């Protein structure tokens, strides 16, 4: 991998706000001000060519919004997205350029047009980008793609509803691969699938990455899944990145109290009998996020500074390959590796 080549994807101070005000008439009648939901509130990261960056976080943290911003489904309110060194508008200006990025969605039941045959679904990008000449060529390419994802070319004649969830996700992947993309955005690609089928899809995605040199932006709420596929992982909370680290570092030495709480919260299959300490409280509304650090109302390490000053994402003391946005880590009062004393008195 040449060092001089720009990152496949770079995101700089990206923010996206949504107007969630009520309709004009109601607003005037009840004298309610406009309300803004800060789905993504100033995040930066880069994905080097041929690697996987995952964004994890709970529902409402803005990870799916980032995915949609990156492929141009939403326009950023602030900041910018650079694809292969080019601003997204330029990077999506021509069909030849748009061909290079594709997206895989979460719900295999909604991501395929129910009225189209599978062969037409897979061929749509081929036609849109003018990648095939004539029917025979298209047919051959569709058959090849179906083979590539472990389906039979005969399946092309069927409709989506004739397939199981896992098979549909394979069809989505075949469609995404049809334009020979270099970069795939995967928005929770396995969270609607059963666990044995999830393993199939994860293995397939890893194999395709090896074979085709793909770059992934992987969105998920499942830390165990993310560990299997990622090179680097970003943890999001309330529209912000709170920690960004190489995958192994994140799991062996999580730094941000939220990351540590998330890892604590995952049910333990090892049955070590370890008493889990659930993090207390709930995620605040992104319409009125708390001032200062967004995690401070739930954080056992919060002090006055955390309540006022939003922390910046900076290299963490001790593990400099990790960047984290936490005053406690910066000041060295986070006791890495030990259980956080009284990590939130949960109700239980």
């Amino acid at each position, binding site marked *: 991998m040449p060092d001089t080549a720009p990152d496949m994807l770079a995101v700089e101070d990206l923010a996206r706000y949504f107007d969630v005000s009520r309709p004009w008439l109601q607003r005037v009648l009840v004298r309610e001000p406009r309300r803004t939901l800060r789905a993504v509130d100033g995040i930066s990261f880069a994905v080097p060519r041929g690697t996987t960056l995952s964004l994890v976080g709970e529902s409402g943290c803005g990870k799916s919004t980032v995915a*949609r911003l990156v*492929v*141009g*489904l939403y326009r950023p309110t602030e900041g910018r997205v650079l694809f292969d060194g080019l601003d997204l508008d330029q990077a*999506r200006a021509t*069909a030849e350029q*748009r*061909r290079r*990025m*594709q*997206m895989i*969605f*979460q*719900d295999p039941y*909604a*991501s*395929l*047009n*129910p*009225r189209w045959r599978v062969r037409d*679904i897979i061929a*749509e*990008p081929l036609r*849109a*980008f003018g990648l095939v000449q004539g029917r025979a060529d298209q047919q051959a390419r569709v058959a090849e793609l179906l083979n590539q994802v472990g389906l039979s070319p005969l399946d092309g004649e069927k*409709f989506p*509803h004739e397939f199981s969830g896992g098979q549909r996700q394979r069809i*989505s992947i075949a*469609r995404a691969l049809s*334009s020979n993309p270099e970069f795939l955005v995967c928005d929770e690609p396995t969270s609607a699938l059963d666990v044995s089928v999830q393993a199939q899809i994860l293995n397939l995605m890893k194999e395709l990455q090896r074979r085709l040199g793909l770059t992934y932006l992987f969105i998920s709420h499942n830390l165990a899944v993310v560990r299997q596929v990622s090179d680097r992982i970003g943890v999001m909370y309330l529209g912000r990145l709170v920690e960004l680290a190489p995958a192994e570092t994140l799991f062996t030495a999580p730094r941000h109290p939220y990351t540590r709480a998330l890892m604590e919260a995952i049910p333990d299959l090892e049955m070590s009998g370890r008493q889990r300490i659930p993090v207390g409280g709930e995620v605040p509304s992104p319409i009125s996020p708390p001032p200062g650090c967004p995690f401070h109302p739930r954080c056992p390490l919060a002090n006055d500074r955390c309540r006022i000053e939003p922390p910046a994402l900076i290299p963490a003391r001790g593990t400099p390959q990790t960047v984290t946005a936490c005053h406690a880590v910066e000041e060295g009062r986070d006791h890495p590796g030990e259980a956080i004393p009284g990590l939130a008195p949960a109700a239980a």
Partner: protein
Amino acid sequence: MRGGVVDAVLMRIADIQLTFPSILVALLVDGVVRAALPREVHDQIALFVVIFAIGISEWPKFARTVRGSTLVERNKEYVLAARVIGLSRLRIMATHVLPNVLGPVLVVATLNLSLAILAEATLSFLGVGVPPTEPSLGTLIRIGNDFLFSGEWWITIFPGLALVMMVLSVNLLGDWLRDALNPKLR
């Protein structure tokens, strides 16, 4: 958001119109056209006037159905997938959204086709639809109505039965059509 204003205006008009019984709207349109045109011109185009009047009186139901289904479909992931590859709005609308909103529209359409037949019959029964020289079930029923008590019941009953059968078949046709167009049931 583009189209927001057009959408708001059209839907408010539809809301207002829905507060009137549709037959009243049809009567109104028919009356306006009648008043605006000389009698002989009107008689020539009376059929089209009725079609127009009934059409105007029924449009809000279609608009609402199409709008509701479109709002659902356009946020589905297969539409997003088409947007990711950069297809034009028009193309997405024609190839993805339209085929998927057709189902619900078809149901409304068949229901309304029978309502339209009934509306025509009602207008003709009231004597404001097609001129008496044109054949119409409504006209027949109205004429028969005058003879009902003199024992000539069959003048009214048979056109009435024909009307019922026609409405019923249209509804059945609609059901069948909806199933036939659904790939899940094929």
